[in-house]
């Protein structure tokens, strides 16, 4: 079985697709593009696809990863070209490579998130970010399926840069992946709790820019 790894993006309106939506759309695209998929055995065979670290519904991303298993050896670039034609608008396949031994999720230790905060106060945002970085711990609470859950939102945040572009306050967050996974909205909630002068007005626009290895608080893409 040939294993191909793909980096893909969710852009614009397509960021409102859930992970399940993406899975259905991707599997249909595989069929439209006649990619000779390998299937699992059993009563209800499924095409061999592995997904890792899917980003939340509503967040855009440039750095999602998956792996497909093929029944016949194919030219990866031909697969990318044909499959790209079959994908819906906004779901963009960016790179493909043949797997080199390891699993597709190996080395995806951290993410860089860009958070756009239209309508927020840029100075208050920067102050909140400084206060947050000065803390060692910052407990925050998130509603989960099993009720409210309290956890530390600070330790996994390896860096914040706060700036304003074209009048829109922005945050770039470097967040290490651990359990429970700290998400950009957890950090935003913590920032507002720390510094009430900072408040998120319109829904923030989130984009995952990079996933990869964490080196000296920087995120290095795997390939």
């Amino acid at each position, binding site marked *: 079985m040939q294993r191909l790894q793909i980096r893909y993006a969710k852009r614009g309106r397509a960021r409102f697709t*859930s992970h399940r*939506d993406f899975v259905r759309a991707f599997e*249909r*695209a595989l069929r439209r593009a*006649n990619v000779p998929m390998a299937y699992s055995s059993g009563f209800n065979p499924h095409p061999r696809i592995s997904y890792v670290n899917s980003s939340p519904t509503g967040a855009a991303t440039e750095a999602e990863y998956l792996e497909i298993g093929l029944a*016949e*050896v194919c030219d990866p670039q031909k697969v990318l070209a044909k499959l790209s034609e079959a994908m*819906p608008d906004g779901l963009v396949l960016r790179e493909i490579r043949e797997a080199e031994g390891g699993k597709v999720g190996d080395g995806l230790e951290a993410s860089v998130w860009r958070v756009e905060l239209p309508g927020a106060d840029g100075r208050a945002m920067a102050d909140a970010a400084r206060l947050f970085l000065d803390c060692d711990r910052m407990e925050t609470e998130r509603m989960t399926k099993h009720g409210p859950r309290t956890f530390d939102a600070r330790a996994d945040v390896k860096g914040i840069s706060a700036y304003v572009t074209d009048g829109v306050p922005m945050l770039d967050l470097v967040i290490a992946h651990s359990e429970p996974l700290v998400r950009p909205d957890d950090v935003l909630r913590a920032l507002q709790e720390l510094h009430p002068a900072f408040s998120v007005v319109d829904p923030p626009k989130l984009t995952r820019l990079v996933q990869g290895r964490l080196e000296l608080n920087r995120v290095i893409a795997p390939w």
Partner: protein
Amino acid sequence: MNIATTPTPAPATGAPESLFPRLEPLLARVGKPIQYVGGELNSVVKEWEAADVRWCLSYPDAYEVGQPNQGVAILYEILNERDWILAERTYTVWPDMAELMRGAGVPQFTLDAHRPVGAFDVLGFSFSTELGYTNMLETIDLAGMPLHAVDRREDDPIVLAGGHAAFNPEAIADFIDAAVLGDGEEISLAISEVVREWKAEGRPGGRDGVLLRLAESGGVYVPKFYDVDYLPDGRIRRVAPNRPSVPYSIRKHTLMDLDNWPYPKHPLVPLAETVHERYSVEIFRGCTRGCRFCQAGMITRPVRERSIETIGAMVQAGLESTGLEEVGLLSLSSADHSEIADVTKQLADRYEGTNVSLSLPSTRVDAFNIDLANELSRNGRRSGLTFAPEGGSERMRRVINKQVDEEDLIRTVATAYSNGWRNVKLYFMCGLPTETDEDVMAIADLARRVIETGREVSGRKDIRCTVSIGGFVPKPHTPFQWAAQLDSATTDARLQKLRDIIRADKRYGKSIGFRYHDGKPGIVEGLLSRGDRRVGAVIEQVWRSGGHFDGWSEHFSYERWMTAADGALAGTGVDVDWYTTRERDYDEVLPWDHLDAGLDRDWLWDDWQDAIDERPVDDCRWTPCYDCGVCPQMDTEIQVGPTGLTLLPLPTVRNPLAAD
């Protein structure tokens, strides 16, 4: 209920701007935002200015239910294939979205280009069920249009109703501008021509000008050109046109030669999850089995088949353009296609070894259907098979003309269980005309025999039978249009008694599943389906008090409907019982008598009398014509095979993605 904030009126000239930038901030705050985003594969966005006539098509329910609708899919393609017509789609938004839209002043939008619905020429609603009426009001209101047709301005879209429920649109007559009966393919193009001419001529006569042109053709019903008078006792005295050029009755549309209309060719593939994720082909339209409760079978006559060749070509192209893996072969009784054995066998051969699966919503109860089901599940699991005897006793089945012999049924299920099927589902109705407790309790006897037989032939204890029961609602244009609907208390009592009998059965009870709904929603459906124009005030009151999504049990409120009916019908001398549980006489003018489905009224009445006398009637495909009236009245004929054609295997090509 908040009425929509002032909408953005469409500019008289120029294309309306996309509403998406104003919608986008709301999407982060609603459930399942993807359903409002559009941009599905195979969706069409055209230049606004390049089209002469612009349609907004709506299935009045949530996206997940409306998107797979076959009627909307067909019209969307047919209209968009013309370069002078543009068609987009809109669905009912959920209450969380509606609230945010009202707050932000964002009007009802289309999914294709996010244009305001109020800017289109025609707003067409496809009604499979009357339970979508309140959703239509919500959509019209969110679009910023006046709720009542008489208040609409020249630039407001023409609100057009179609689909099976439009065969009696009287309950929504105040809210729609027009309705069409029957197949929409040709009439939607004809309406487009009329609207184009009227616009090109500078809109002579204003809104009434174009409506009059449509009404004069006899193929489009414009309720406001007809007056309804009532007798002192509340019955209708007469329905008559109030304009000299408008005909007394309006005829339904029937598409002949389905092979010339192989739609949908490129159905939309949604990103969001929907109720049916399959490529569906209608293998024929119409049904002449003559089941007396079945409105679909009465109003879609005659039977018109698609040939095996067209079906094969549609399946091939449809799968290629969508990437779907499941194929549904649709019709009112799919096993009745003259070449169904060849269709299923040859399609199964063609897709042998792939993951493509075929499904056949099959309702006839005979051994032949087991062969088909076996063919369709060649490689798969044999989990459940559904049959619909509809009536529990032989007597009941003679009344409704569902000719299923109990011995046949038992032989059929025996074949099913011995072929490895584990669960047989049986569908019945409760509340049929002349029904007694005994008729319903006979369902338990039948289910017991099914299990007994199943255990015998399969040698296993773990086989099951699921009994599923729906309440019968009398429908217009059927022999039961004169019948009394059973009140919900009696329906509930009968179902309770049946459940108790099944539960108490120590030998078989545990193997029999029992599913039913209470009788209350059926009463609301009955009020709407046989309603007249006075019922419109009830619908409006329900919507004003916050009711919509009536097809969803978590949103439906029987109490709200009854309270609204008490208020809105006060002083009319009629009430919900009058519309539902009252039997009608031959002489009574029915609200839909001026709408011509082709069925001869006297034939319907005679068939109603035959029902009471438990006399069956045969299918005109295999026995001489019995003069139901449709073919001569509509100038149509039965179009059935066999054609004797065969499907060739699909060519296999070398993998074009192979490494060099």
